[in-house]
């Protein structure tokens, strides 16, 4: 009777787990494309244990650079707790690099860009979605794939302007009254972020 009960209890959990293991675009099955030089080096020294898997085995390989410029840009916009956009085909994105706003079209030259607090806007046809990102990196590959990895991002319409003003005033005050270098640096970061937020909401 106990055995049947555990079987009954196990089945719903397993079926719900397998239904959740629907392939997300971020969740991919294990492929056999392991790094062969690693496996060989491993087997030479440790023949008895299977080598561990490496991240390459869990990733879908990216397409190679096409000879003609593709019509759409494929964007992956990821955050630590979610994938905002996963392999979405868009016309253009504008990212806030530290050197200024950068527009990315299909066929853009390969770039690694560090981001400052600002707005990422995604243009698809006539829709424009704007996100405020705190900071991060953006990689633009030669095959018209763009990866934007941000630490935190929110859609612009979810930001409260009053709190932004309050935060800006608070950090400006902290900056003027800061004594140690650490406090000054922290206050400066706060001021930069809130001014960028302000600009994003108004500009």
């Amino acid at each position, binding site marked *: 009777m*106990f*055995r049947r009960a*555990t079987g009954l*209890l*196990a089945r719903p*959990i*397993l079926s*719900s*787990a*397998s239904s*959740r293991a629907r392939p*997300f*675009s*971020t*969740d991919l099955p*294990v492929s056999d494309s392991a*790094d062969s*030089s*690693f496996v060989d*080096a*491993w087997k030479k*020294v*440790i023949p008895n*244990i299977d080598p*561990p*898997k*490496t*991240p*390459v085995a*869990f*990733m879908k390989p*990216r397409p190679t650079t096409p000879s003609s410029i593709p019509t759409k840009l494929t964007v*992956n916009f*990821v*955050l*630590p*707790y*979610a*994938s905002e956009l*996963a392999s979405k085909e868009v016309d253009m994105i504008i990212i806030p*690099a*530290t*050197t200024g706003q*950068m527009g990315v079209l299909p066929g853009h*030259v*390969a*770039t*690694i*860009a*560090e*981001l*400052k607090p600002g707005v990422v806007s995604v243009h698809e046809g006539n829709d424009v979605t704007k996100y405020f990102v705190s900071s991060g*990196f953006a*990689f633009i*590959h*030669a095959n018209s*794939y763009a*990866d934007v*990895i941000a*630490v935190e991002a929110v859609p612009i319409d979810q930001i409260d302007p009053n709190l932004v003003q309050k935060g800006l005033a608070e950090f400006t005050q902290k900056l003027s009254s800061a004594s140690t270098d650490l406090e000054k640096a922290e206050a400066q970061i706060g001021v930069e972020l809130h001014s960028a937020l302000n600009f994003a909401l108004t500009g």
Partner: protein
Amino acid sequence: MAMAAFRREGRRFAPLITPQPITAVRSSLISEEQAPLGVRSISTQIVRNRMKSVKNIQKITKAMKMVAASKLRAVQVRAENSRGLWQPFTALLGDTPSVDVKKNVIVTISSDKGLCGGINSTSVKISKALQKMTSGPDKETKYVIVGEKSKSQLIRGSKNDIEISITELQKNALNYTQVSVLADDILKNVEYDALRIVFNKFHSVVQFLPTTATVLSPEIVEREAESGGKLAALDSYEIEGGETKAEVLQNLAEYQFSCVLFNAVLENACSEQGARMSAMDSSSRNAGDMLDRLTLTYNRTRQASITTELIEIISGASALEG
């Protein structure tokens, strides 16, 4: 027939048949059976105690399985959402676990609590094997340990190689801020050319794949890009932002480490809960089997003592008659 049985049993109970009240005989019977006189049956009291404790154990392991299942549900969602985080880095910088560097640092991720099957031993085994693989003349390999369980195993063999050990990571819910502070700590205090993170990737509720992710220091990235091979394409990328390329690569390496560590910690937490679920499930099943066997033993013992009592009474009665 009763006489024959009594004669058989008589050899056993001869020293006990004294003019004493029945209760004393019964208690001395029990104590006689406890003593190792080549007697095969166990007292019912002992069996009953054992059954009670096994039943309690079964209840506890079932409860632990339910708790692990609910925790797994919560962490699994977050782990799957964080899977997109490391993919852009691997797409850009490739995956180079067979890179040849002087200073390797192995970051082993394990759980704090036990009773989770073999995942911690697997991580330690892979870490030790990686250390063996990356050792060589004028190369050094150090450990950074996250989690209590691998600490106790690795301290035995490589006490001097452990640079930092971090425990109680999951006291508060895992979040990116906490992991990035941890990554910052590690990067500041440990000299490294290549960081190898060893963890158990959550493939399904019953399958956990030991995985190792490699993060290279910016100098090694430059070296590999110049020498050709997997990172050769890196030179073709324009660098935007920062004053120098080196600064951007430094930020990139640190960011990559914190992202990969975050995903690794979440995946390991998932694997821990899944492994605990299956360990507790098999433990409950074993307890159930043991309970069945003990019930049979109990019934046999009980019936044997009833038979014995009957035999005594009947032979006593027939002795009085005849």
